[in-house]
């Protein structure tokens, strides 16, 4: 403590010769910057599908949805709730061609069901959805490359049946 007091006195100095303290406040430095454009929506309703701008992520080799994808699926659930004209949505699981087709079909089916269950837990009526695992049967890219296999591992939401647009009335 003595050392501290000594240091303070030295810092203050005889007649305050060592430190000059600002007496009057400075006017603020004004900083302006452009707001970046809003991020494009991650979930978009098209004529025949609910398109998602990023992938649903699962734990490797399982149907466990990773928490990082919960927000995305929450947006899908909201879109379905806001669009009751979508009467039947097929949640589709797809894999790449690595491993046996049978195993991939089973895993993709489990993943599609896992997504469906998650959406139901968020208020989407389960009867409006069905799950189907296609395994490696519907590739959208070349399975010969890492990039192609990454694209093929995916979840899609395709609209199988829809009625006329209905208006959603929300409680205040």
């Amino acid at each position, binding site marked *: 403590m003595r050392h501290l007091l000594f240091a303070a006195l030295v810092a203050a100095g005889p007649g305050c010769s060592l*430190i*000059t303290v*600002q*007496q009057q406040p400075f006017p603020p430095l*004004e900083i*302006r910057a*452009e*707001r970046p454009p809003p991020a494009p929506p991650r979930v978009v309703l098209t004529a025949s599908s609910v398109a998602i701008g990023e992938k649903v992520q699962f734990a490797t080799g399982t149907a466990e949805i990773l928490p990082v994808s919960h927000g995305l699926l929450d947006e899908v659930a909201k879109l379905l709730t806001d669009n009751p004209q979508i009467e039947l949505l097929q949640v589709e699981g797809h894999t790449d061609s690595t491993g046996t087709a049978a195993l991939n079909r089973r895993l993709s089916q489990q993943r599609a069901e896992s997504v469906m269950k998650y959406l139901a837990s968020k208020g989407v009526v389960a009867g409006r959805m069905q799950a189907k695992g296609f395994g490696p049967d519907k590739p959208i890219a070349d399975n010969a490359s890492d990039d192609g296999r990454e694209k093929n591992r995916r979840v899609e939401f395709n609209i199988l049946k829809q009625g006329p647009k209905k208006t959603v009335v929300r409680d205040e």
Partner: protein
Amino acid sequence: MNSSLAISLGVALCAAGCGGAGLGADTRADISARMTSAQQPIAACYHAGLKTNRKLGGTMVVAFAAAPDTGQFQDIQVTRDELGDPGVRQCVIDAVGKLKLARPQATRLAISYPIHFAPNP
């Protein structure tokens, strides 16, 4: 920790006990000019913060010292932060830490400087 406390005590003793003339007009102008010269890097800090929070804005007050003889800005601390973005705060500290007075003084200067952030309308 002890040294910063000692300096704070020293500043308090000096401010309370001796008063003094404070910063001269030329020194104040020098400090303002240095801070203004950092407007662009600080705006870049803010722009980065706006990417994650489009409503980010408010006042941040940085307290620092200008070293005797060199004029280097050092011991930079944020004493008020309405933005609450740790990334922006650290970025501003780094930007201010690169500044030094054009006309260094013989004494150490204790400075507190407000920065106001607002997005372009």
